[in-house]
């Protein structure tokens, strides 16, 4: 159980003068063992913040801390990320077992057994380890990606729009797996989605992001029932609800 903290994090693309600021001085705490849902419109900087956490995007300013320790100082990052597109998340030339085993820390004993255990954990049969990604459905691939993230023995997981490319019928299975594992393993999790209903379902805390900044942060029930920021209200009003007239 670790606490993930963003301290005044800024990420800039392109040059200082003509570039764009994707993340603009973000302060955000993901408390140990909790799920923080991050919502916001596309281009608001959600994915960039996530990529910065795992070292895929360089910081222009600020720090990212794990339990108070700057993350750059750690030799192995106990941090893993799951990506949006299930069709690009797995190497098509590798068996799913090999993909999962690859991320295991050195000195893992019986890798085969561990792969089997992880597959079972995400609800796939252990004997599918030899399967190639193209034999799996999108939802099954996303569960393999989850197993791969877990194989690195992370304490913090960043999940970026992991169900938005999936059909609703499959989305449920992936969300159940995520929530179940998070509770059992007491993982700390940053869960990004533009779908408010999904975020509401999985998260304990919600952060609302707009134009690179966090505009609202708080426990799910409070934020969704009693939003303080104008933009959060706008987002909530836009959630489609069957039968509720659209307005003009």
């Amino acid at each position, binding site marked *: 159980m670790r606490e993930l903290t963003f301290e005044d994090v800024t990420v800039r693309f392109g040059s200082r003068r003509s570039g764009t600021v994707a993340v603009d001085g973000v302060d955000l705490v993901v408390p140990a063992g909790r799920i923080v849902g991050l919502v916001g*419109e*596309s281009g608001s900087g959600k994915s960039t913040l996530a*990529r910065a956490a795992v*070292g*895929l995007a360089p910081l222009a300013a600020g720090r990212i801390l794990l339990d108070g320790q700057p993350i750059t100082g750690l030799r*192995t*990052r106990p*941090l*893993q*990320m799951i*990506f949006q*597109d299930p069709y*690009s*998340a*797995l*190497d*098509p*030339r*590798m068996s799913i077992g090999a993909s999962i085993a*690859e*991320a295991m820390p050195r000195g893992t004993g019986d890798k085969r057994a561990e792969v089997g255990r992880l597959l079972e954990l995400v609800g796939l049969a252990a004997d599918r380890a030899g399967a190639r990604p193209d034999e799996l*459905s999108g*939802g099954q691939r996303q569960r393999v*990606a989850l197993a*791969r*993230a877990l194989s*690195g023995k992370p304490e913090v997981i960043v999940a970026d729009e992991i169900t938005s490319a999936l*059909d*609703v*019928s*499959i*989305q*449920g*299975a992936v*969300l*159940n797996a995520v*929530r*179940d594992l998070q509770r059992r393993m007491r993982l700390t999790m940053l869960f990004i989605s*533009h*779908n*408010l*209903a*999904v975020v509401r*379902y999985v998260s304990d805390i919600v952060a609302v992001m707009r134009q690179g900044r966090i505009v609202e942060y708080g426990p799910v*029930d409070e934020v*969704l*029932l009693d*939003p303080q920021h104008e933009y959060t*209200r*706008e987002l*909530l*009003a*836009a*959630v*489609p*609800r*069957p*039968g*509720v007239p*659209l307005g003009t």
Partner: protein
Amino acid sequence: MKATAARRWTGALRSPLGITAAVLLAAVVLLAVVAPLIWSGRADAVQSAEILQGPSSAHPVGTDLLGRDILARVLVATRLSVGLALLATAIGVTAGLLLGTANVLLGRWIGRWVGTLINIAVAFPSLLLALFFAVIFGVGAKGAVLAIGFATAPGFARLTQTMAATVSGRDFIAAARVAGIGRMRILVRHVLPNIAEPLIVSATMAAGSALLAFASLSFLGLGVQAPSYDWGRLLGEGLAQIYVHPAGALAAGVAVVLAAMAFNLSGEAVARAIGLRSAQTGRRTEHTYEPPPADPEPDGPDQPLLAVENLHVTFPAAGGPVTPVRGVSLSVRRGEAIGIVGESGSGKSLTALAIAQLIEHPGRVRAERLEFLGTDLREKADHRRLLGTSLSMVFQDPMTSLNPTQRVGRQLAEVVREHQGADRRTAWRRAVDRLAAVRIPSAERRAKQLPHEFSGGMRQRAMIGMGVMANPQLIIADEPTTALDVTVQRQVLQLIANIRAAERVGLLFISHDVTVVGQVCERVLVMYAGRIVEDLPTDALLHDARHPYTRALVAAVPDMTTDRNAPLAVIPGRPPDPHDLPAGCPYAPRCLLATDRCRREDPALTTYAIGRRVACWHADQAPAAIPDNRTTVPDDDKTDDPIAAPLGGERP
């Protein structure tokens, strides 16, 4: 996987191209190995008595200036010619690989410089480059090999670089980096295996070109020097005597052409074998099973805008034709909004495309009735005008349907100019007017912009604006808001709803999102495995659906009232493969209520109440068996607060 790969390769070998390539290549390699052993004595024997003879039985293509047998010399030269070409290719490929993967290995910064270098080098004609190197490295075989090798490298590097960049952009590389895998391991384990096949093809082709280039250099005297000889030199020697006896000159030329062809054809054959990957090689048993015909909808008092009965869409495939749309019947009346929902691959888009006559060859559309505004679309007439003015399609990705190089206003104006013959001025004015109608701010200025200057939501609105340029009677929208944010989605949905209300336009709205469809449409058609399995009014969707699939689908979507402490409802299994449909109800393998009858007989879509149809043997049991996850909001609990009301179930 291994087995299919093996099948792929044997399949490629059995094609005429594959056979030719394999035979030629085998012959070239065999000659390169054995020819010098057998014929070198004969090739080097100087016979002053037989100088410059024409073809004879002793010398099939004659003799050269020193009376040596030309055929033997050509055969013996195979080893040197092919060997040098392969050596040059190997140098080129290695250098190309090193340069091309610099991005992956050395990081982006150095990679960018290498990239610039490659771009400059590629711009040089390779023969010129070879000549340039020949001057540097000196005239001779060594210089020529290096020259051709380095001339091959830039092209190969460029290819490697682009392909490696594509692979590197994919998430599994990012995942490997997050997992702390080193650059070298990423290159060897993830990047190279994913680009190996096209690289092998192009290396093979490069060998063919190297052979030709080497022959040219030797021919020009810049390559192999006497007393060694390769085909290029033999060609040069022969050419001097071309008028005396042409056969002697041509022999080396034929050899060069044949050997180059062997390499190029092999590359081609391998490329085809790789390209075949997606096609099914195994023969499947043909399965022309027909679902029972659906009850057509009764025509109402006025004639429907669109009437479709028993629509089929079929595509040929290696294992026999597949039919992803199997017997869809629906009708849309003036001003009516109908939604089609279903999982990916259920045939929603194909149904829409078939109605708009946009299914392209080799796809085939078949229907018992396909009428739009009373016109039979099945007749072989030109319906472009009718469809162009009265029906409009809005697709998910507006970028692909707008021309990126033309101003948005002009593209809109084009529609009325083409279909209504309006003059340029009127057309432009109408375009600006329509852009304003779809709430594009400062439409006059925006109309002069290019599509990429619009945001995603604006582009989608412009597409809709284009759709209503010619006053359509029916709008077909295929996932028009899937790529948009919720706030923009709402604006676009409102726009569609307003246009429909103002102009009594019919709407066929396709989406995988049950909630969105429920908000926009009055009636919903649920598709599964290419058929409509339920047809019901939207207000019945949440609590009164009768098909087990509809109920499961609705229950699986979390909304703002879902119980957060219970697991989400899931639908086990996955939709059937259109190549291999089960005999009975296609939902049976995933259905809680499936009985033997379901697995045997396919239920037809039957009417059970006014405006309600369902295709299920046990529809009456479904509501009790598959609960919905929604908390009903009691009537008196409804407030005016738009946020609190839908969350009513959540409040303490």
